[in-house]
């Protein structure tokens, strides 16, 4: 594996964990989530890098509209 690919993977990981942090923070503060159960969402966000967070965001667009 070349150095360039290692940098790419690290970059992807950083983005994943920042996004996951935002989403997990939203899950803990939110009363209701899509599908009622919070645990599967936590697993999806952590296990599927970036796309899990995107999926959560797609199902909870209200988190971007606090007004």
């Amino acid at each position, binding site marked *: 594996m070349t150095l360039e690919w290692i940098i790419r993977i690290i970059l992807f990981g950083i983005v994943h964990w920042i*996004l996951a942090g935002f989403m997990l923070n939203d899950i803990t503060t939110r009363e209701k989530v899509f599908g009622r159960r919070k645990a599967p969402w936590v697993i999806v966000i952590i296990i599927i890098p970036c796309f899990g967070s995107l999926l959560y965001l797609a199902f909870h667009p209200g988190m971007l509209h606090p007004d």
Partner: protein
Amino acid sequence: MKRENLKLFILPLLLVVCTLFYYFGELVDWAAWDSLRNNFFYGIHDVHRLLFLAPIVYAGYTARIKGAVIITLVSFIIFLPRAFFISPYPDPLLRMIIFILFAGIIGYLVARLRNEKDKYRELEETKKKQ
């Protein structure tokens, strides 16, 4: 549908439109829409990327700093496939990171401006009440 509910879908819609525009060349190739083929969609995508400023700034305005950061990161994820696998031009990742940094800063500043504006408004209201 209420107007408030419609507002929820502005950001995702903006992102989808920008993404379709960003990958339109690949979409044309995949779907074989030869009549829509244009050189503009096969060059360096620095100009195409500028479209993503719209959702980032909008997110900064409506959802403040958190929204600006989230949409900047989502845009970053959208850019990754081109930077990793598609772009034949030099330093695709570096160009993308520079754009994302500046777009994120713009979104952050818009969000700060909006926050300050709200603070001034609150102060004015409390002053009027006194």
